[in-house]
């Protein structure tokens, strides 16, 4: 009997409620394909989400799914992963859910490095509540709640993650099947918390906000697709490269054909490099920006700390672990 599942096997019969043209559709497709490709078991996979457009995701995947409350998905997922570490636990969140109301949970989840795969759909806006600015909105964003433009500084998911002590951070574009697919594969393989920031287009409230680097015409020059150990090249003909300027401690764009020896290779284990890549405006760094191995929380939880969740003792004995006396 063949147990090979296809992307279709991971799709539910539920009517999808996202707006037509929303980037979420493309993400859903790539995620279900990635699950099938990875040979995931439906019963051992759980999608946990908070509140927001992205958080509808669990309803559309035929695995276990829990649509929780605003911002708290990482905390619910943490409890689930702790009690059953063999599960593949995915968290689906957005820029408002994950970085605003749930910022604290995301921070501590990353710090703990518990084995959750977190997909952060960043569309730089609140979709479900009808278009208010979010923590990742650029300053000056005009929305119903900021008619004269938003005032807050924009939060960088990557800088946040590295600051919180994340061990895996990657980026991808919603419609980029290949790029997103390979990032998902790497995220799933990482032992610990993986944070994947997906640039997701909200066609209704923030259309084309990522156009500067997602438009076909300019993509080649505006996207840096990272591969660990490979030279950091971009441009239609890989004619541009990144070089470390040791005087300014910055990454400079150089002519890669002329000075191939000066093009730096990507080292995903280098946190300083990861910080510089995250800060790049153009080109925008995509792929696995940072990855470092560390014992995931659930492993230490079972081996060193707390209980092994195996009942070796009896309550009757524990009750007597103190002075007792007998009245006759």
């Amino acid at each position, binding site marked *: 009997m063949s147990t090979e599942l296809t992307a279709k096997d991971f799709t*539910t019969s*539920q009517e999808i409620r996202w707006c037509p043209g929303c980037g979420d559709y493309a993400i859903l497709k790539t995620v279900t394909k990635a699950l099938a490709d990875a040979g995931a078991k*439906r*019963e*051992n*996979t*759980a999608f*946990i989400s908070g509140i927001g457009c992205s958080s509808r995701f*669990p*309803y559309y995947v*035929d*695995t*276990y*799914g*829990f*649509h*929780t*409350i605003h911002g*708290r998905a990482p*905390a*619910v*997922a*943490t*409890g*689930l*992963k*702790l*009690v*059953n570490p*063999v*599960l593949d636990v995915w968290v689906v969140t957005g820029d408002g859910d994950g970085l605003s109301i749930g910022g*604290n*949970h995301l*921070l*501590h989840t990353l710090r703990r490095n518990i084995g959750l795969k977190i997909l952060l759909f960043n569309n730089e806006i609140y979709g479900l509540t009808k278009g208010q600015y979010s923590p990742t909105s650029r300053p000056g964003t005009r929305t119903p709640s900021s008619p004269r433009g938003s005032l807050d500084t924009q939060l960088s998911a990557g800088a946040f993650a590295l600051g919180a002590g994340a061990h895996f951070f990657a980026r991808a574009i919603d419609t980029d099947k290949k790029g997103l697919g390979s990032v998902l594969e790497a995220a799933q393989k990482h032992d610990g918390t993986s944070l994947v920031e997906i640039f997701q287009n909200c066609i209704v409230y923030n259309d084309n906000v990522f156009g500067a680097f997602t438009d076909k015409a300019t993509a080649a020059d505006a996207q840096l697709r990272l591969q660990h150990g490979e030279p950091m090249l971009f441009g239609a003909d890989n004619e541009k490269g990144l070089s470390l300027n040791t005087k300014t401690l910055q990454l400079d764009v150089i002519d890669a054909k002329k000075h191939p020896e000066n093009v730096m290779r990507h080292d995903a284990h280098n946190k300083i490099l990861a910080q510089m890549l995250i800060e790049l405006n153009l080109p925008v760094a995509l792929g696995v920006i940072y990855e470092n191995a560390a014992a995931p929380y659930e492993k230490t*939880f079972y081996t060193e700390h*707390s*209980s*092994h*969740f*195996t*009942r*070796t*003792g*009896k*309550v*009757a004995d*524990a*009750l*007597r672990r*103190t*002075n*007792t*006396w*007998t*009245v*006759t």
Partner: protein
Amino acid sequence: MRRRAPSEFMKKEHKRNSIVIRLAGDSGDGVQLMGSQFAASTALHGNDFSTFPDFPAEIRAPAGSTFGVSAYQMNLGGGPITTAGDAPQVLVAFNPAALKVSLPLLEPGGLILLNSDSFTTRNLVKAGYANDPRETGELDSYQLVATEISSLNLEAIKDFGLSKSDGGRCKNFWSLGLLLWMFDRDLQLIVDWIQRKFADQPVFRDANIAALHSGHAFGETAELSAAIPQFDIERTALAPGEYRGISGAEALSLGIAAAGELADRNILFCSYPITPASPLLHRLAQLGELGVGTFQAEDEIAAICAAIGASYGGMIGVTSSSGPGIALKTEAMGLAVNAELPLLIVNSQRGGPSTGLPTKTEQSDLYQAIYGRNGDTPVPVLAARSPGDCFYVAIEAVRIALRHMTPVILLTDGFLSNAAEPWLLPDMNTIEVIDSNPAPTVDTERESQALVFERNPETLGRPWVAPGMPGLMHRLGGLEKDIKSGHISYDAQNHQLMTNMRAAKVASVAKFIPPQSIELGETTGDLLVLGWGSTYGPIFQAVRRAQQEGLAVSFSHLRHLNPMPANLADLLQGFDRVLVPEMNMGQLSTLLRDKLGANPITYCKVSGQPLTINEVEQQIHMHVTSSTGGEA
């Protein structure tokens, strides 16, 4: 080292049925340790007892200040002893501040044992004494024994080479030695304990033992001059069996572990530190071998959410906090209600509102427990009455959670967490196992989504299906779902049905709980005193006293606050008046009016202190008299 004189030669000055002792000093004086060791000795001696530690709010308040006084009160005697007592008859005060704070509590004619070394001008000023109270006559109505505890202790341990400040720390053992002499106790139990506790600090171990013996020997010597009285306190006739001393936090932690054992499920306890709930986390962190895992979350919300995640994953999720933290958890409670997942939420109540009085006790979160959520979101609520009762209430709460697939709130309070009493050990084999709603058999003909929401008609609990189970994949969430298919539903009719279902589910708990019984007195009559939670002790004693005075008064105490026992309305109707004493502004009274249409008399006290026996007794007098006197 001097040996204890054979007790038959001792002069028993004071025979008493019971006595209340209060130990008071600076946080650094080791009063709590001294108290808990005295309690252990009291238990073995065969007295019934009840203890209550009274901590200062500050971790390390300035030495000698009145707000830094740490106290330990204990009531011991022939049973039943159900409270730590109203007014102490014996006060041990380590410094002027301790005297100042405790004196107003002391019974007239009581015994005061002072450490006279600490009555320096500086300490007197810090305590706010303009003149030395030993000389002003204000202590004339008490028996005063002033002893140089500090110097006698240092003298006793001078051979151990400890610094003055390290050596000074032994003075609680010196004082304990004296106290043990006053109550004719065996030193060996404490010596054994010191040897275990200080096994890897041999110098402290030996110095503490020497101090203990020295204090005891001091008593013997003083006896010659009859300066220090001895007490012979009635022993109790407790039911036969094996006993231990237990605090509420200990009993609660063991009860939670026992619930896991009885349900054959492991426990994940998730919490965030808060006073006075943290002792539960500390205790449970030591019960790993009973299948208990503990997770200290980043905040209160994460704590309950992780507990919900645990329950979703098939373990028993438990979270705990105090009022302010419970407030933060309320949205997540609604999620657990909507997702129909079991969950135990423990609230160790403290003084409110806001940060309020973190170290003091109150029962003012009853409204919060019963009504405090958005939407029509009922949950069962239980309350523990005594330290040992916490064990049984924890088991009962988990039983309800698993039977009905619902979050359950368990109310305890700061007083119960820290108070201790002797406790008859339960026989685990006689406690009924806890059933949970089993997962359905996979049916490929039907949608698993619907199978997962096929509720037991009697309990309305749905099958407990966890990720990892093949063929039962389903989607769960905070959105309203169709009562049959379990899919999201915005249908008006369906929402009414689901709301009714949630209400009926909690109401159905009443079918499984025992009828409300009368603790003391007749089942009908003039006056019923009705209590809930930690006021059990003082109400019990007050009613007993009133009965001894010939008053017709009965007592009943609630464990189940939502739903209330089915017979409660009838029971209340059997009395002309119902008096409800509580440590809040009348929250149970409101509940009785709301749910049963009753019209109780409320006695409220919101001072951060437990009810006293006397004040409840006074209330009984007031209301019994007016009723028998025929006044309107």
